[in-house]
Structures are given as structure tokens and as C-alpha cells.
């Protein structure tokens, strides 16, 4: 069209709309926009309009996703990096959409994502990871808890077996004092209180009874731990021995949480795969038998394997670190605090005397509460049955 042909209101309106689009795309700054808008509204001929739009790209040229105005590409890279925190399945559906919103909402001349924006994205990623997915495709933390309720009794059983293997071998060699040999069966039973409690918890039908008995056991353990801490000196409840009080407390607490908050043992059995079972068995054996410095090699390898299996593996790692982490790392704190000779004491499994007495008392408490709760439960069901008739 010839430059001297006069423009109409519609032509000028179209030009101002184009200028606004260019501003939104980032080709113009706010001050330039105002200047050019004024010029466009006052343009009498097509020549003047063309000069206003001269250095701007044609409206037909769609922006390629890769070709961006120079100062926005760093911003987009930053956002893509932050969006990598989101789960893969979620990203497949929502990444492009979120990127569009983020780029539109970002201030005009920013080169990097703002601190608040970044923190908000990371927080959002955490929330999305903890939310149940729409069709239940990706197992969330609740499903992982169900798997934990199945696997944790196995782990504690293995560590306890390793724990008693030491005294057992001493007894079989004939090297233990007489009184210990007599009391050994009782001691053995008391050591297995923990695994038995966990097993009882995971059996759904006994859940109510087992929960009450386990609460009693936990309270007893906590009481003794506090007592030993205040008394100082020798270690009645085995706070520093492997398989002792704190480890058992954490395992019991986690199992109770797993049984009450998760979809249940059946779901856990559905989800658990041979890979996870194998890895947790290896982890339990490694944690119970290896010592410095092999632990520093074996544990990271097992963790890496868990992380790489699946998202379920990653959740399992997080949850099982609660009881097993202290089990592995507390001895190192002792080594750091008191030197390496203390670690030998920590690793010793022959520990008759004080811990033995307390373990028997705890076992008796657990069994007593178990029996009383079972009896009351049977009374209750008998009463319900008589009402129903």
C-alpha cells in the first residue's frame, strides 16, 4: 500500500493492538510503548504507521520455542530447572503450561527466576509429590507406608537374629558364665519381644490389641531410656548397644504409624516387589554385621540402589531411614566423641547383667498388656454377639 494513503480509525486501532502484542512479547519497553502508541494514534498516513512498526517482527512470524528474545532465555532455563523438582508423570502433562504461566507472570526485564518464585515452585513440587495421584498410578507416601508395615518386621527380625548370634556362639563354645547359660532362653525371648510386637502389629486382625501392648512397650522403653540418661554411667536399657532401646522405639513407632495411617497390609503386599525385599534384607544384614569402615561403602551403595529402583524405592528409603539411620550413625557419634575404643564396646553383643534384667521386665509388660487386651477384646465381642441375638 502506498505510503501517502490516509489511514482510518480501524487501521490505527489495529496498529495499537499490534503494538500491545509486541509489548507483551517483550519487544518494547513501557516508555517506548507509550511513545509509539501516541505516534500510531496520530498517524495520518500508512507511511507514518509503517515507521511506527518498522523495526518490529511481522505479526505472522510465530515465535519458535527455541528462539527467544535474548534476555528471556536465561529465565526460561531457570524455570525449567526448578520445574525438574516435580514428579515426572506430572511434568509430562503440566510442564509446558506452567512454563507459559511463569513466563507471562515474570517481571518484564528479569534474567533469573526470583527467590520467592523459586521457593514457591519447590514448595509446590513437595506438595504435588505428597498428594495422591488421580488414578493411583504413582504410589505415594501412603502406599510406601503400607510396604513399610510389611517389611519392617522382617528387618527387625534379621537385626535381632544377628544381635543374639553373638551370645549364642559364646554359649555354644561354653565360654559363658553359668547363670547366663541358665537364663539364656529367657533372655532370647526378651530380645525377640521387639520383632514379635512388630509382627503382631502388622497382622490386621490383632491390630487393636497389638497397638495397646506396643504402646505399653514404648512407654516402658522410653521410661528406661530416660532413667539411664539421668542415672548416667552404665547403660541399663542398652541405649548405646546395637539393637537397643532407641532403635526399637523408632521401629515400633514407625510400624504403628505404618499400620494406622496406611491403606493396610494387603496393599503393601500387592505393591512390594522382589527387588525391594532383597534390597531391604541386604540392608538389614549389612547394617547389623558390618562395621567401620565397610559401612561407609555399603550403605551408600544400598541407598543408591533403592533410589534408582522406582519412586516407591525412594519413599521406602526416606521412611526406613527413620529407624535404620540412627542404628548406623549413632556408633559413629560415639567414635567421634570418645575415640575408637568406645566403638568396640558399642559393637559388643555379649551384654549380660543390667540390660538383661530390664529386657525381661519389658517383655513381661508387653505380654501382660497383650493378654489383658486380648481378654477384654474377647469379652467385648461376646457382649456384642449376645446383643445381636
Amino acid at each position: 500500500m502506498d505510503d501517502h494513503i490516509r489511514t482510518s480509525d480501524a487501521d490505527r486501532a489495529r496498529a495499537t493492538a499490534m503494538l500491545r502484542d509486541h509489548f507483551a512479547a517483550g519487544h518494547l519497553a513501557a516508555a517506548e510503548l507509550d511513545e509509539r502508541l501516541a505516534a500510531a494514534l496520530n498517524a495520518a498516513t500508512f507511511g507514518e504507521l509503517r515507521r511506527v512498526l518498522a523495526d518490529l517482527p511481522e505479526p505472522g512470524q510465530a515465535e519458535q520455542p527455541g528462539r527467544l528474545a535474548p534476555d528471556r532465555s536465561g529465565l526460561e532455563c531457570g524455570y525449567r530447572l526448578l520445574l525438574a523438582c516435580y514428579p515426572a508423570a506430572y511434568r509430562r502433562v503440566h510442564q509446558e503450561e506452567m512454563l507459559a504461566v511463569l513466563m507471562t507472570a515474570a517481571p518484564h526485564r528479569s534474567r533469573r527466576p526470583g527467590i520467592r518464585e523459586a521457593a514457591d515452585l519447590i514448595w509446590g513440587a513437595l506438595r504435588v509429590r505428597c498428594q495422591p495421584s488421580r488414578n493411583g498410578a504413582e504410589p505415594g507416601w501412603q502406599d510406601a507406608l503400607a510396604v513399610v508395615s510389611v517389611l519392617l518386621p522382617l528387618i527387625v527380625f534379621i537385626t535381632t537374629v544377628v544381635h543374639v548370634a553373638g551370645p549364642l556362639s559364646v554359649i555354644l563354645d561354653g565360654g559363658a558364665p553359668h547363670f547366663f547359660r541358665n537364663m539364656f532362653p529367657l533372655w532370647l525371648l526378651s530380645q525377640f519381644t521387639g520383632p514379635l510386637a512388630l509382627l503382631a502389629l502388622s497382622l490386621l486382625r490383632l491390630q487393636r490389641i497389638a497397638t495397646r501392648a506396643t504402646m505399653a512397650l514404648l512407654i516402658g522403653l522410653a521410661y528406661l531410656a530416660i532413667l539411664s540418661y539421668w542415672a548416667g554411667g552404665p547403660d541399663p536399657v542398652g541405649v548405646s548397644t546395637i539393637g537397643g532401646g532407641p532403635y526399637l522405639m523408632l521401629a515400633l513407632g514407625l510400624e504403628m504409624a505404618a499400620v494406622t495411617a496406611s491403606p493396610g497390609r494387603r496393599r503393601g503386599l500387592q505393591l512390594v516387589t522382589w527387588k525391594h525385599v532383597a534390597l531391604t534384607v541386604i540392608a538389614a544384614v549389612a547394617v547389623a554385621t558390618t562395621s567401620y569402615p565397610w559401612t561407609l561403602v555399603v550403605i551408600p551403595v544400598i541407598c543408591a540402589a533403592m533410589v534408582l529402583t522406582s519412586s516407591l524405592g525412594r519413599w521406602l528409603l526416606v521412611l526406613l531411614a527413620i529407624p535404620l539411620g540412627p542404628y548406623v550413625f549413632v556408633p559413629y557419634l560415639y567414635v567421634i566423641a570418645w575415640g575408637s575404643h568406645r566403638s568396640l564396646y558399642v559393637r559388643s553383643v555379649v551384654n549380660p547383667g543390667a540390660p538383661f534384667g530390664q529386657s525381661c521386665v519389658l517383655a513381661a509388660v508387653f505380654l501382660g498388656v497383650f493378654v489383658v487386651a486380648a481378654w477384654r477384646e474377647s469379652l467385648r465381642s461376646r457382649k456384642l454377639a449376645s446383643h445381636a441375638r
Partner: protein
Amino acid sequence: MTELPLREPTFLILTALAAGPQHGYGIMTDVAQISEGRVRLRAGTLYAALNRLDTDHLVEVDREEIVDARLRRYYRLTPAGARRLQREVERMRSTTAVAAQRLKLIGGTS
């Protein structure tokens, strides 16, 4: 039925969608306008809330468009979502009515 009250960002998102299907950035600007600039919704919070609402079947995807070579997805309120918003409004209305009445009695502005 005892259900937990909606958190403010969720409530504002549902209110924004009650006007009609909107895309992410549209919801953000609408929420800023409804709350008179008080609540500034960012993308992370918005999409976490939308994910939750989608799982609970209170919102759903309306359509998708390509604008400026970028994907834009529109969301709309489901009937269940509209009912949920209605219940929340009723709850808040009854509570604020009681508060306003009591303030009037002690001579405050209502």
C-alpha cells in the same frame, strides 16, 4: 457433614473459576483482583491447589489452546465444585452474620 473449611487460596481459585473457564495466568490475575491485591498467587501454589482440586473432582480441564507458540490450558468448575463453593459461602455467611450482629450490639460498625 463435617468437612474442613477451604483454605483461602483454594477458595479464591474456586471463586475465580465460578465466573467461567480460565487458564492459569487468568486465574492468578482474577484472584489478585478479587482479593484487592491482598493475595498474590504464584504458579507453584496455584498448580498444587489445582492438582488437589482436580483429584477431588472439583475442577476439570475445559480445553487447550496454543497461544504465542505456548500451551494454554483452560480449567472449569465441575457441578461438585460449585456445590462445594456454595456450602463454603453459606458457612461463612452464617458465621459473619452472627459476628456482625454481636458487633452491632456492642456498638461497633456492622
